[in-house]
């Protein structure tokens, strides 16, 4: 339904577009989501991970481009946000993604860039054109700085000032909020600030290297100072049925109503906490929309609230008058207000039909026996805001957890907005949620400060005014929170079948089961369940998961968001940054930083075992299984938890043939050591199959064969020489011509002239396999100690004394399975184990139709690529990442992302139609190309077991080690894997 407001008119007559074969009438300039809502359509996307509705229908949820739930295909371009994509007329919009066939291909999302990305330098870059961002930009510009503002929306103003959509024009007086926004935006523009609209900032590699997509092109902004004014988004409050179309945030409904003049639905329930919900309900009612109820979890303000009420009234009489006006409007329209209630469930088949609400007691528990049920097609949920801190986290700014409500993030700042990272400021609700007035003052103060830091001369008068305004605004906000103070929020009552993670369709039950099984570190939960791996980058599930972990374990919450920050902060078209880069820079060794984030654990008095394995990666887990299965007394010690470093960050290729960096003149140590591992590959894959059947788990092993493609004669010659070596070691290797390659993998680029095919290769899911092998080892009797960092090992004659951060362990034998950190463990017993750690990069795209079955590599180039069972394409190939000492985190670099995407689209052109969801960096084990196994010379009972180049060989080196421990010999020649080869 369209709302008719007397003060705005549509700019142009309606146009039409197609949605799943239906003709939809729309106003040019409005969003696809608004047009669908105007036509009474709430089901927008068919999700591939299901949800609460039949067929996995999803609708508009956040309405502001952050949740990625309303994705549609627009004129063949996949994954466009219906809430952000404007209609111009004639579009073909579909609820489903393209199937990737020639009839329904993935259309390129952006132009490819041949040269370097365009660069824009400026004094100050502001991200976000809301109240805080505009104020900061204006203040800095008034001092004379050259300022650019990047904003994701079509007009400046942000969520608070909410300008009228481009489909409409204002033709009469508007309210104060609109007026203030217009004045601020105008002053900023007229001061000479360049405001770039429709700019999606997807990452920042450094404060002076900010990446944004503008009009399909990725730009690099190089400011001297960066001001983050990214605003806030609504907190997720999971209830059964909250993924049904028709359930949306209060902000989404407000944008529809205020910016687009469209009613969010026919019969609306507004629920949550705080005055915004009342504002929305009053606005809807005054425009003739039926509001079934307003549900407020705070109790009705009583005399007990007299103090904050008076204080709020004194500080901002206008806002308080507005608030009382909303309540009067609702009363006149006979809209019931349920104080002290919350929504406990939403029901419907394809879309929302019914809402259930209950009174909540003082502990936050719903009193189910007093539940009320209301018919509604729309439920607006507004439970407060969460600061959008993703960019700050990506840059390494310190972010704290403010315990209010479910815990909200708060960027650590000085009074003038400087974060813990030099040159980066954070202002407004994006730094700490506190409302628009405070945001404006915040922005002004930081804008002056940033300009002053660059040597501009500023008039401090406005700064003083801003400081006073900020103090006042902060007091008002405090009073408001006190008036609307809800009972404590708890997730105890959320049923197990409720969706927790919208992107991946994970339920509370799945996560609770894992937590109660002892998987209590966020990194482990992420790897085991895919929690937080979706498009929204854990914006919605992150804070809920942190709270759930805390409630279930009784430990304090891990922080505002429990997961490591990974670029991009918003998906971007892969092609927009695919640029050819020099390859073969070699591995950037990173020393051996301790990357673990151990959970607090009780000390123990003493432990003892015949065999102690140090390191809970895939090799440690496999070794533990083989030894425990043979009846040995095995203890696995890990300083963090299972599968968190090189193993869990691995892309999961099952390699048999040599990779480009293992063969030819660039290979380590001439390639000899790598070639000596060739016989291990097929054997290791057989062992993987055995382990999968023993653990009765699907490791997602697919032996689809592996292709190394070539685009020129030199590449073919390289492949032929490589195949000769491989065949001499018993590997099946076949050279394919262009035609045979096309027949086998029809989606690969037709400019490729051939490939080497190795039928034994394939893929495995390291996020399943390591845990399953570990569980098998446990069942076989392995004991496990986590969060215990090994500090020293001393031989005692009959064995070893190991001292750890949790207590001492006596061991008969010690197995060093510490992967990239094996050198440090070797140092503890005085031997040199030349293992280095090198951070490498991986990239994963959004889910795609099935495009490639095989593991794909590129002759003499850096590329490995495979499609996961979930549909995402993992792109790697040993591109260098960087170790960030400040954050103690491996991070990806722009050059590697650019180069890796270039090699990927060179081989698989349909990459052009996909967004990049995430890049990550994991420590790679860097030896000379071959593993190190065997008892250390001169230290009887101390064994090394370290594999090189990936996941594949883990069970092979584990089996060899187990045999050496059990029988003193292995049934194959291991002389080339022994430590003494380095002497």
């Amino acid at each position, binding site marked *: 339904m369209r709302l008719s407001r007397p*003060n705005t*008119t549509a700019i142009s007559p309606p146009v039409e577009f197609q949605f799943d074969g239906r003709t939809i009438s729309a106003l040019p300039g409005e969003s696809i989501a608004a047009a669908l809502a105007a036509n009474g359509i709430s089901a927008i996307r068919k999700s591939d991970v299901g949800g609460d509705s039949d067929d996995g229908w999803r609708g508009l949820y956040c309405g502001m481009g952050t949740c990625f739930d309303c994705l549609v295909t627009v004129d063949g371009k996949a994954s466009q946000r219906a809430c952000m994509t404007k209609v111009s007329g004639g579009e073909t919009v579909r609820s489903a993604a393209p199937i990737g066939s020639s009839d329904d291909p993935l259309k390129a999302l952006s132009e490819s860039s041949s040269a370097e990305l*365009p*660069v*824009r*330098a400026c004094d100050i870059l502001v991200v976000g054109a809301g109240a805080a961002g505009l104020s900061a930009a204006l203040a800095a*510009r*008034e*001092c*004379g*700085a*050259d300022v650019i503002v990047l904003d994701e929306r079509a007009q400046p103003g942000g969520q608070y000032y909410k300008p009228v959509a481009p489909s409409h*024009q*204002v*033709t*009469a*007086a*508007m309210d104060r909020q*609109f*007026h203030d926004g*217009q*004045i601020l935006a*105008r002053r900023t523009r*007229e*001061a*000479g600030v360049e405001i770039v609209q429709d700019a999606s900032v997807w990452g920042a590699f450094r404060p002076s290297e900010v990446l944004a997509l503008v009009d399909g092109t990725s730009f690099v902004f190089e400011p001297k100072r960066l001001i983050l004014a990214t605003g806030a988004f609504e907190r997720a409050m999971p209830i059964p049925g909250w993924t049904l179309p028709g359930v949306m945030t209060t902000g989404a409904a407000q944008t529809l109503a205020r910016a687009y003049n469209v009613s969010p639905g026919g019969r609306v329930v507004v629920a949550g906490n705080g005055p915004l919900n009342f504002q929305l309900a009053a606005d809807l009612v005054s425009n003739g929309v039926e509001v079934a109820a307003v549900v407020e979890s705070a109790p009705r303000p009583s005399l007990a609230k007299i103090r904050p009420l008076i204080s709020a009234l004194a500080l901002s009489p206008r806002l308080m008058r507005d608030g009382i006006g909303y309540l009067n409007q609702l009363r006149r329209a006979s809209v019931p207000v349920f104080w002290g209630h919350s929504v406990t469930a939403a029901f419907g088949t394809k879309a929302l039909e019914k809402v259930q609400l209950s009174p909540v007691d003082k502990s936050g528990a719903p009193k189910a026996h007093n539940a009320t049920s209301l018919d509604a097609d729309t439920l607006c949920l507004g439970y407060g805001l969460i600061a959008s801190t993703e960019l700050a986290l990506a840059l390494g700014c310190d972010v704290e957890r403010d315990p209010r409500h479910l815990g909200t993030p708060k960027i650590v700042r000085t009074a003038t907005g400087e974060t813990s990272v030099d040159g980066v400021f954070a202002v407004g609700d994006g730094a700490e949620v506190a409302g628009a007035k405070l945001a404006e003052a915040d922005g002004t103060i930081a804008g002056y400060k940033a300009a002053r830091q660059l*040597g*501009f*001369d500023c*008039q401090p008068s406005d700064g003083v005014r801003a400081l006073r305004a900020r103090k006042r605004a902060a007091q008002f906000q405090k009073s408001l929170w006190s008036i609307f103070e809800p009972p404590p929020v708890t997730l105890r009552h959320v049923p197990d079948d409720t969706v927790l993670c919208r992107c991946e369709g994970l339920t509370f039950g799945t996560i609770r089961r894992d937590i109660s099984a002892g998987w209590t570190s966020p990194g482990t939960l992420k790897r085991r369940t895919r929690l937080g791996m979706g498009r929204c980058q854990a914006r919605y599930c992150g804070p809920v998961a942190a709270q759930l972990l805390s409630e279930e374990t009784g430990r304090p919450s891990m922080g505002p968001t429990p997961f490591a920050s990974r670029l991009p902060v918003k998906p971007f078209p892969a092609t927009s940054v695919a640029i050819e880069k020099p390859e073969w820079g070699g591995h950037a060794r990173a020393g051996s930083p301790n990357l673990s984030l151990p959970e607090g654990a009780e000390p123990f008095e003493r432990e003892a075992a015949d065999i102690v394995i140090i390191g809970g990666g895939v090799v440690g887990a496999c070794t533990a299984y083989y030894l425990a299965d043979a009846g040995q007394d095995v203890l696995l010690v890990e300083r963090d938890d299972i599968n968190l470093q090189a193993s869990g960050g691995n892309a999961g290729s099952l390699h048999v043939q040599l990779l480009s960096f293992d063969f030819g003149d660039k290979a380590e140590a001439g390639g000899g050591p790598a070639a000596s591992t060739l016989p291990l590959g097929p054997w290791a894959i057989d062992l993987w199959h055995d382990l999968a059947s023993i653990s009765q788990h699907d490791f997602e092993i697919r032996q689809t064969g592996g292709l190394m493609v070539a685009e020129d004669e030199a590449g073919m010659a390289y492949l032929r020489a490589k195949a000769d070596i491989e065949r001499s070691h018993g590997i099946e290797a076949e050279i394919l011509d262009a035609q045979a390659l096309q027949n086998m993998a029809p989606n690969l680029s037709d400019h490729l002239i051939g490939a080497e095919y190795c039928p034994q290769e394939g893929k495995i899911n390291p996020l399943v396999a390591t845990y399953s092998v570990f569980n098998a080892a446990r069942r076989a009797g392995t004991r496990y100690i986590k969060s215990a960092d090994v500090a020293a090992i001393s031989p005692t004659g009959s064995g070893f004394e190991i001292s750890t951060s949790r207590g001492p362990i006596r061991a008969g034998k010690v197995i060093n399975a510490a992967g990239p950190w094996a050198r440090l463990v070797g140092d503890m017993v005085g031997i040199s184990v030349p293992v280095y750690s090198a951070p490498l990069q991986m990239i994963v795209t959004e889910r795609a139709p099935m495009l490639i079955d095989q593991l794909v590599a590129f002759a003499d180039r850096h590329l490995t690529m495979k499609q996961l069972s979930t549909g995402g394409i993992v792109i790697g190939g040993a591109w260098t990442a960087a170790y960030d000492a400040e954050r103690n985190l491996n991070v990806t670099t722009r050059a590697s992302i650019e180069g890796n995407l270039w090699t990927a689209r060179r081989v698989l052109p349909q990459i052009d139609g996909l967004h990049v969801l995430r890049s990550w960096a994991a420590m790679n084990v860097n030896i000379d190309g071959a593993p190190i196994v065997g008892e250390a010379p001169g230290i009887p009972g101390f064994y090394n077991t370290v594999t090189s180049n990936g996941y594949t060989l883990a069970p092979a080196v584990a089996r060899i080690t187990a045999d050496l421990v059990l029988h003193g010999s292995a049934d194959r020649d291991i002389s080339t894997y022994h430590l003494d080869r380095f002497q």
Partner: protein
Amino acid sequence: MIVLDNVSKNYGTFEVLKHCSTSVDKGQVVVICGPSGSGKSTLIKCINGLEPFDTGTIHVGDIDVGASSTNLSQLRAKTGMVFQNFELFPHLTIMQNLVLAQRKVLRRSEKESEDKAISLLRRVGLEDQRSKYPGHLSGGQQQRVAIARALAMDPLVMMFDEPTSALDPEMINEVLDVMGELAADGMTMLCVTHEMGFARRVAQKIIFMDRGEIIEDCTKDEFFQADRSERARQFLAKILHH
């Protein structure tokens, strides 16, 4: 009145202004023309402090535009600017649009601001439209309101950035006529425009720019009659036969 000395500006590696020097006398009407992307708009935006420049100096009266101590809002109050897209507030009446900045920036009384607004609206022929909202006016009328709004600040110089290029052809003349009257009244004016007829009629001086450089800086008569640079000739041929 306005003096530019060796002004240059870069966007990264791209030079938008290259060593631009010129001057404008009090009461002079200057038309700046040149192909799109030649730096015309950037040049006038640098003059009123809308865009910073990298090297050189600009003086407006006794204000040193590039100096870090310059109060940019004061500078802009003295340099009235009229944009392509009118930039009127849509939710304020014509009268309110004219009064707002006088009240906020010049701190004039309501009475004084309104009197000024009415006399200026009369001057641009829109006195009877004062209670309407911009959305109810034609583009030409809106641009005349925008000119009146700039004049309300009593600027020393008026600058026009392609004031007619967003207008339907039948509305261009009403705006050019108002500008012509302004020139006749002795206002100092800098106009970025493609309207060569206006230039012939009203301008005293023409600045022709291409690729960030001032190629011609001469009187109107010299520009339209004498032998001009090849680039200016090509530009004029294109404009006049379009």
